[in-house]
Each structure stands twice: as C-alpha cells, then as structure tokens.
C-alpha cells in the first residue's frame, strides 16, 4: 500500500531535514562554582584544543557568561554536548541562525 504524505508530514520532514543540515552551536555557560582551570582542561580533553585556545574560550565564558565552543553538524554537536555535560560543564545546543 502506498501511503501519501500529508502536507503537515511533508512540512515537518522538510523542517527536520533543514535543521539537520544547518550547523549547530555547542555553548558552554558560566557557573559560579566550576574552577577555571577545570573548564580549560575539559575543553582540551573533549575537543583536543591547544591550551591557549581552550583558555581563550574559558575566559570568554567567564567574562561574558557563555561561549560557542564548537559549531558543526547536529550529531557531532550532541556528542560534544554530552561529553561536556559528563564533566558537568553547563552546556546547551542551538541551531545557528540562518
């Protein structure tokens, strides 16, 4: 049996595919507890960043309250967010604005 997609299903699928195709930001937020050296170490460990880059991102978190630490495909972004949360860094994901 051939099932014809409804307009809603088509729109949902298109939106979902568009969201998959668009890049996602992995964002680390500041918290008043976590040590700055710990944040740097975790960023180095999770992303393989050099210490200077990790420290720059950490300082951005500290001074502005958040930093986009990585941008890319949704699947990889989710993997990174999970790893950061595994180390208890306050992490969120957002789709990059078109």
């Amino acid at each position: 049996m051939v099932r014809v997609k409804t307009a809603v299903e088509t729109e949902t699928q298109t939106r979902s595919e568009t969201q998959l195709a668009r890049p996602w930001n992995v964002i680390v937020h500041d918290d008043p507890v976590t040590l700055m050296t710990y944040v740097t170490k975790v960023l180095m460990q999770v992303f393989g960043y050099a210490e200077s880059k990790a420290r720059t991102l950490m300082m951005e978190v500290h001074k502005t309250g958040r930093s986009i630490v990585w941008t890319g495909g949704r699947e990889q972004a989710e993997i990174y967010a999970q790893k950061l949360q595994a180390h208890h860094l306050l992490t969120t994901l957002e789709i990059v604005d078109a």
Partner: protein
Amino acid sequence: MWVARVDEGWLFGDLSPRTAEILKGVPMLLESEDPRVRACLLPETLHDAGHEADWRAHAVPELERLFASRSTLVGRDLAAMRPMKGGGKMLLLITNQHASAWLAALNASRLALYCLNGLVAAHMEMDSEEPATPQQQQAIDSIHLMAEMQSVLLGDAPMESCGPMADLDV
C-alpha cells in the same frame, strides 16, 4: 590536610573526621535523586521541546550510567580510606586510575551543594560578605575544600612523586 604525590596517586593526609564525612558524601551527591541536583547535573539542553525530549530519552540515561560508574570508582577509594598511625586523622589515596573520575565527581558535588543550599554567586567569592546560614556556611566550606582537592588533581601546583606509598610512615 596535607597532600603528597606518590607513585600510586595522590595521598591526602591529616583529614579530620568532618572532612572524611564530607568526602564520603561525594558518591551520594553524584547519584542524588533530588530534583534540584538533577536539574543542576542534567540541565535543560535544547530550547525546542521535541529536541529536549529526544535528548532526555537518549543522552541523559547514558550520563546517568556514567555518573553511577564514576560514583563506584570514587567509592572504592573512599572505602580504602583509613586512620593514620597514632591518631584519629584519616588518610585517603586517590589512585592515578581514578583521578579523572574524582575530578568530575568533585565538580558534581560542588555544584550539587551549591544548588541544594540555596547559595548565590556572591557566596563563592573569596572573603565573601554575603550572609549565610550555618548550614550554608558548612556547604561553602565543603565546596572550597573540594576545590582545593580539584586544584591538586589538576596539577595547578605540580608535585614530584615521593615514591611508593609504602615508603611513607603514615
């Protein structure tokens, strides 16, 4: 409290009974079911409700398993904590193999204590003048103690190994 680097890991000595009790609470905080702790350790990650539901269904259970496993590793070192020779102070070895688990577990515990005790950012500042209840002050002291231990494990002040633990008369 003193710290020595030994071949097997980091040795924390002269731990008071109160400090030992605080550290024994780390695994419990890591696996706490308290909604304030869960919100702190497993925060909302995505704005979209559907995406967040997917995240809760797939990513969060893995994180919970990881926290439980980490709790077990930390618990093993705590179970081996023993009194020092000639006194009531305690000795804790954080093994090299468990150092990463301890680092994350201490961070989780600090966050959990912060959330559970209604602390604010001003409480975390050095020489804070933010009013605190006795219970909050205990939590603040615990948070600072755990920060000191994290700092040691992070190598903020590199330490040379004293050799095998058995060589120390403790």
